[in-house]
């Protein structure tokens, strides 16, 4: 599983990455967390407000940092 966390590095983007990593560790799933900061890459996902999280290419949230509960639900 590949998880993309998108954001140029604002406070919420850092928070989103931290939450995702914690959730991955907690769920014990085998997932690679990739931080995407390049704006062209972010645009390719069709994301125009950050932070955003995509799992295996599918965008799950845009414009806010997800809660750990939400991320755990996506990982199932």
């Amino acid at each position, binding site marked *: 599983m590949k998880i993309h966390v998108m*954001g*140029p*590095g*604002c*406070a*919420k*983007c850092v928070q989103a990455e931290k939450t995702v990593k914690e959730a991955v560790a907690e769920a014990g799933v085998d997932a690679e967390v990739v931080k995407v900061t390049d*704006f*062209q890459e*972010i*645009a*390719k*996902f*069709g*994301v*125009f*407000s*950050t932070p*955003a999280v*995509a799992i295996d290419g599918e*965008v*799950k*949230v*845009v*414009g*806010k940092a997800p809660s750990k509960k939400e991320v755990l639900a996506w990982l199932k």
Partner: protein
Amino acid sequence: MALQLMGGVAALAAWYALYSQLLPFSNWLTYDLFGLAPASHLGSAVQFFAYDTPKVLMLLLLVVFLVGILRSFVTVEWTRRALAGRRESAGNVLAALLGVVTPFCSCSAVPLFIGFMTAGVPLGVTLSFLISAPMVNEIALVLLYGLLGWKVAALYFATGIGVAVVAGWVLGRMRLEPYIEDWVRDIRAGEAAMADQRMTWTQRFAYALDSVKDIVGRVWKYVVLGIAAGAAIHGYVPEGYLAAIMGKATWWSVPLSVLIGVPMYTNAAGIIPVVEALLGKGAALGTVLAFMMSVIALSFPEMVILRKVLKPRLIAIFIAVVACGILLVGYLFNAII
């Protein structure tokens, strides 16, 4: 849903009961408990601080929550679609108005700019959005309402939107598209992700509560500091002291305020309490309004972020046009009020 509605009504009633007790409480605290004389410098400063701080914070809590509910409907994706293919003029007005309610943080200005460009939103319309979004927001309006009354708040809203519409329209007429960074023009964006996400009311409430925690958690320090500075000016600077330098009669005070305000950067929460105090000491409304707008609308950090998508020349023209708009607002109000 029914449970949340009941909770909401109960919270609103408690809010109102507490809010209506703030003035008697601040008087009791200052004059009875501390025993300060109402006419003294310290007494007037302490009473101002003890009344205005909780008042503004409580107003912020309520309004940020309500705006949070509104923002759960007006997402960036929604606004992007609403503005796509709009003509200028009507597009500028719509963009300036949507700038007020669309969730926006200057840190995500670049993805938003790309999103608008790839959706075919004209440059001038996009710039109208980018001018109004940081300048006209619920925090500025709550502070103006709480400290200066609804007339000044309404004036700020109307002129802020006016500057965003006119400056964006003028910039659009100037054909500045060549000064967008080349990579932005070549970008191929994917289909907007999650453009149709539907939230349940439970999710909207959670979203609004989150934004209260986030926004009020961030700005409360500025509010307290700003009101403390305002209280000091209130109590200690003599009445009419500023009339000579920031009054109506001094023609150069408006351009000077804008010139000082552009490089300065703080959010609305920090500047408005100071503005309130300046007004009380004889500064003219137009001058103060121009000062405040230039501080909030044109900020160095935001220009650094926009520099990633705009060439230096466009940034310079953008700052110049917006500053001219603000200047006009300042002179207009000094002339008619």
